[in-house]
């Protein structure tokens, strides 16, 4: 008498901690930059179909061939989904699933490659994977598409993976947003973070209270540092900060000492300020490289960072003018009580920086 077909249950364990032999199943997870994901499950096709059929209350197919396996897997789609769980934070995702079957290394085996695809929810922070269609241990690799080295975890059938931290979505590239961000970064690189640049600009301001003198020096400085900032950022020139930073400190000291010794703008002073501007531009470039420039908005970021630097310089000069220049620059004691003491203070500070930067 023929034995009746009865339901065979796949008792694939839920949270199993029993370490079994390593099987042929492999799972690889890739998170793409566009917030999509792919999970590839590679497994023995015939063994999977047998389990799916049994779990569906059917006998395993009597003859399994490469051509019959793929339609069978597709038929069992809903059954397959029952023991596969993709979870973002605490929410389960329902992926699109594509089944394909190819011949294995030897003619008697067939390999199923099952691709589960979907979109990562915008606010998702963690990914968890559970696969209950194997009795053996298997390796799961997880990586971001930009990353070359995947993380590997060994799992048992039915065991949930450790939560995998997802990267925060990259903010969309927006020209106006980029311009504002780098304008702000340029400004704050001077005020309040760039004390050395602030002292240099103050040194320029202190030499003479005349507007013409200030404008000529600031213009020379701005043109010069814009040139070296641009050339450095585009990789045309590259000078080590080990040389640039002590020279910047030295330039501040020079301007301060000259302020003590001279009371009028001389022509060589413009040339020197221009030369110092070239040095400061390389210093700005070092800072900007550390911040990084968006690939798609390189020119916008470079230009607005430079504009931010200018705004910072003007803020320093404007503040100094409002505090002391406006009311006192025409007073007889202005030079002896303001310019010289302030320049001495600047010279001492920059001398200290020169030494520490040379020694560091």
């Amino acid at each position, binding site marked *: 008498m023929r034995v009746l077909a009865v339901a065979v249950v796949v*008792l694939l364990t839920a949270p199993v901690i029993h370490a079994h032999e390593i*099987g*042929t199943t492999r799972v690889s997870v890739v998170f793409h930059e566009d917030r999509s994901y792919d999970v590839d499950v590679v497994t023995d096709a015939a063994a999977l179909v047998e389990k799916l059929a049994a779990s569906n209350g059917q006998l395993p197919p009597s003859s399994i061939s490469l051509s019959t396996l793929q339609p069978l897997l597709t038929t069992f789609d809903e059954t397959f989904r029952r023991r596969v769980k993709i979870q973002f934070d605490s929410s389960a995702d329902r992926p699109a699933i594509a089944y394909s079957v190819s011949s294995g290394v030897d003619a008697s085996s067939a390999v199923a490659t099952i691709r589960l695809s979907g979109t990562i929810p915008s606010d998702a922070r963690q990914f968890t994977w559970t696969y209950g269609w194997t009795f053996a241990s298997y390796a799961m690799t997880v990586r971001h598409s930009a990353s070359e080295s995947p993380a590997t975890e060994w799992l048992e*059938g039915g065991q949930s993976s450790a939560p995998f931290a997802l990267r925060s979505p990259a903010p969309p590239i927006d020209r106006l947003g980029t311009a504002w961000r780098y304008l702000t970064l340029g400004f704050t690189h001077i005020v309040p973070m760039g004390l050395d640049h602030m002292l240099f600009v103050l040194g320029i301001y202190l030499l003479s209270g005349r507007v013409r003198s200030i404008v000529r020096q600031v213009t020379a400085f701005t043109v010069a540092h814009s040139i070296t900032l641009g050339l450095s950022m585009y990789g045309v020139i590259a000078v080590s900060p080990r040389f640039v930073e002590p020279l910047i400190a030295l330039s501040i000291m020079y301007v301060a000492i000259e302020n003590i010794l001279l009371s009028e703008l001389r022509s060589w002073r413009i040339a020197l300020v221009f030369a110092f501007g070239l040095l400061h531009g390389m210093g700005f470039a070092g800072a900007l490289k550390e911040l990084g420039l968006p690939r798609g908005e390189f020119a916008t970021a470079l230009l607005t960072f430079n504009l931010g630097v200018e705004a910072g310089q003007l803020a320093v000069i404007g503040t100094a003018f409002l505090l002391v220049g406006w009311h006192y620059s025409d007073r007889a004691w202005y030079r002896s009580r303001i310019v010289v003491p302030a320049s001495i203070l600047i010279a001492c500070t920059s001398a200290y920086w020169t030494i520490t930067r040379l020694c560091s």
Partner: protein
Amino acid sequence: MESHVPSRSLSQPKLLLMLAIVMTGASLSAHDMWIEPTTFSPESGQIVGVRLRVGQDLLGDPIPRDAALINQFVFEDAAGRKPLVGRDGADPAGFLRVATPGLLVVGYRSNPSPVEMTAEKFNQYLKEEGLDAIAAMRARRNETSAKAREIFSRCAKSLILSGAATAEQRDRPLGFTLELVAEKNPYALHAGEDLPVRLTYENGPLAGALVVAMNRRNPLEKLSARSDSDGRVRFKLPADGMWLVKAVHMVPAPAGASAEWASFWASLTFDLRPARPEGR
């Protein structure tokens, strides 16, 4: 000798289905391991792939060859014992060539693997595999609620027949720590006939062990029996097709094993012919 009648009738698929639904999602702690050749009845000269499978209720996953795990992977025919060849990481794990017609005994003995289980899982596993003596020992030691560390070893065998079956052809002991030996040639039997099986531990009879037999087409209809004082059980195999006979034995782990217990998993697979035509 003792034989148990299946606890569920073969003619009650609905009952089984209900049971199946109830059992879905249940968690078992341990999985069987068996040998599944690409054919149980090769021609002389044929190359046979020998698959290793781990799973449950004869639903299993292929286990690729792992040189680090293999203690013995051999087959024995009239000419003697030979190793199964194969490539590390490949499935089937081994290959043999049938040199002459006859009954071939294929065996796989693994090195021990460590595992740690929660008390709940371990107690459940002891119950499912009929390891009552170990459960009682743990209770005596007040360890029932303690987690357990175990080293487990596989002792799998398979019988393959090339050519005509004769009653003189016999399964042969391979000397595995725990071993099931068919005391009749299963290929000389038909569905509905008795198969005596002997269970040995360290080459001596193992009494009182739970031995379970299941058919590929109806694995939930298990036959089970406790081995007698000679380590014997007798199963009346009701259906043709592939059969798996299995038993698990556990002892306290040897000193220095970094585990409290050592288990041995014996299995024997073969193919049974359909029932004899009536009147013969």
